[in-house]
């Protein structure tokens, strides 16, 4: 973790990790940005762990199962679903900090604030189909095993279709970020990331056939509608985590172009630097 060359800060003390963390907590003007970035990093680790390992809802089970098999699936995964989604509901609040950091990146650009505000609204909404509806629906199914198996299967369809078939909000969010980067003159993000956002948006269209097909490559667990989309999303997420970290390292709290990093990853002094606090 490095700080901006503001010129007004005491030097970072040598010594233990705890001591350095304490120094950053007290003096680092980028403290909130780093907290948001680490929150994002931890969130995605937990998200993967909870969905793929604890609840076993990813990769999704078969879309064509009969009601008795669906009820059996709920029974087999009962504790994983209840414990896993309890944690999912707790960590869902972390998305606020993540969205705020991405909106901050757009506020740092030379574009209208409307981009950041649009992104915030879109991604606040996307938490529902992207995470919470699946969790709520499957928790209901797990908590009411005595209900009619047809109803349980309806809940199962509802959960996975909302999770795997609704990418429209993410698509628009990616496009908002893309246009902001292409118009930006402050070089906050490289242009290739804007084009990667377009690529990500276009692969999110590909999940739409999951609403129609119950088996094959276009089903909600199919090679194209699911696995390809996951591959692009992981690439995209890795790219923006890396670029957001780089943006924080380069941040000088000015209003002009972000300075480039020198070899030791601290930003070059910029004429537009001002005291952050």
């Amino acid at each position, binding site marked *: 973790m490095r700080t901006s060359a503001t010129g007004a800060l005491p030097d970072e003390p040598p010594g233990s990790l705890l001591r350095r963390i304490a120094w950053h907590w007290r003096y680092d003007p980028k403290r909130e940005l780093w907290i948001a970035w680490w929150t994002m990093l931890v969130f995605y680790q937990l998200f993967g762990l909870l969905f793929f390992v604890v609840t076993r809802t990813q990769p999704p089970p078969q879309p064509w199962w009969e009601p008795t098999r669906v009820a059996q699936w709920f029974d087999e995964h009962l504790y994983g679903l209840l414990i896993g989604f309890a944690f999912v509901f707790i960590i869902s609040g972390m998305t606020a900090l993540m969205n705020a950091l991405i909106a901050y990146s757009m506020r740092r650009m030379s574009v209208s604030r409307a981009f950041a505000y649009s992104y915030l609204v879109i991604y606040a909404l996307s938490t529902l189909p992207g995470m919470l509806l699946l969790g709520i629906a499957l928790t209901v199914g797990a908590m009411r095993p005595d209900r009619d198996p047809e109803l349980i299967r309806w809940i199962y369809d509802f959960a996975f279709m909302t999770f795997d078939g609704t990418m429209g909000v993410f698509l628009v969010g990616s496009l908002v970020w893309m246009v902001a980067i292409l118009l930006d003159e402050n070089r906050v993000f*490289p*242009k*290739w990331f*804007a*084009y*990667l956002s*377009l*690529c990500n948006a*276009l*692969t999110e*269209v*590909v999940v739409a*056939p999951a609403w*129609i*097909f119950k088996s*094959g*490559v*276009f089903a909600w667990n199919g*090679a*194209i509608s699911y696995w*390809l989309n996951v*591959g*692009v999303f992981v690439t995209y997420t890795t790219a923006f985590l890396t670029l957001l970290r780089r943006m924080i390292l380069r941040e000088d709290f000015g209003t002009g172009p972000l300075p480039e990093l020198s070899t030791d990853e601290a930003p070059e002094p910029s004429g537009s630097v001002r005291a952050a606090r």
Partner: protein
Amino acid sequence: MTNVANAQPRSRFVPGQPDMWAFVLFEALVFTAYFIVYIIRRTQSPDLFLESQAHLDLRVGVFNTLVLLASSWSVARCVQAARERSLGAALTNAFLTMLFGFVFLVSKVLEWVTKIEEGFGFTTNEFFSFYYFLTAIHFLHLLIGFVVLAIGAYQLASPARRSQEIIETCATYWHTIDFLWVLIFALLYVMR
């Protein structure tokens, strides 16, 4: 960004923004994945795919391909004219490219309508699922291509904002669409 009026001999490695070539790479990888899945599924049901493929009109596919190749030719002429500061000719070629693109879109919609009227829909069988999926995702790329061409034409229309780099970037996107169509054409219409 290089102004057309001040064009200097350049030593750039690729035409346009290098970042757009990253997009070309990403899209090539994604479409390669689609094609691999298609070929795997085809090898698992060769009779179904061959029988269904016979219902596509090869002449329509050839016409689509020729129209898009013509659009690539006109967009290349647009870039060349912009480099030579013949901005009127460049603008004319940009609009010609849009016209070819529009002809492609209309012919593709007509082909879809014909196939649906013949009873071959998105869910008829796996071949037609791939047919509609691949042509539709390409269609979407082409629609974005119109926005990209409009940006190029906007650059050409005024001396104050001309940027050779942006014009070449737009042309690179359009060539990518053409390149992807040639592969889709070969897989859906030609490969037996």
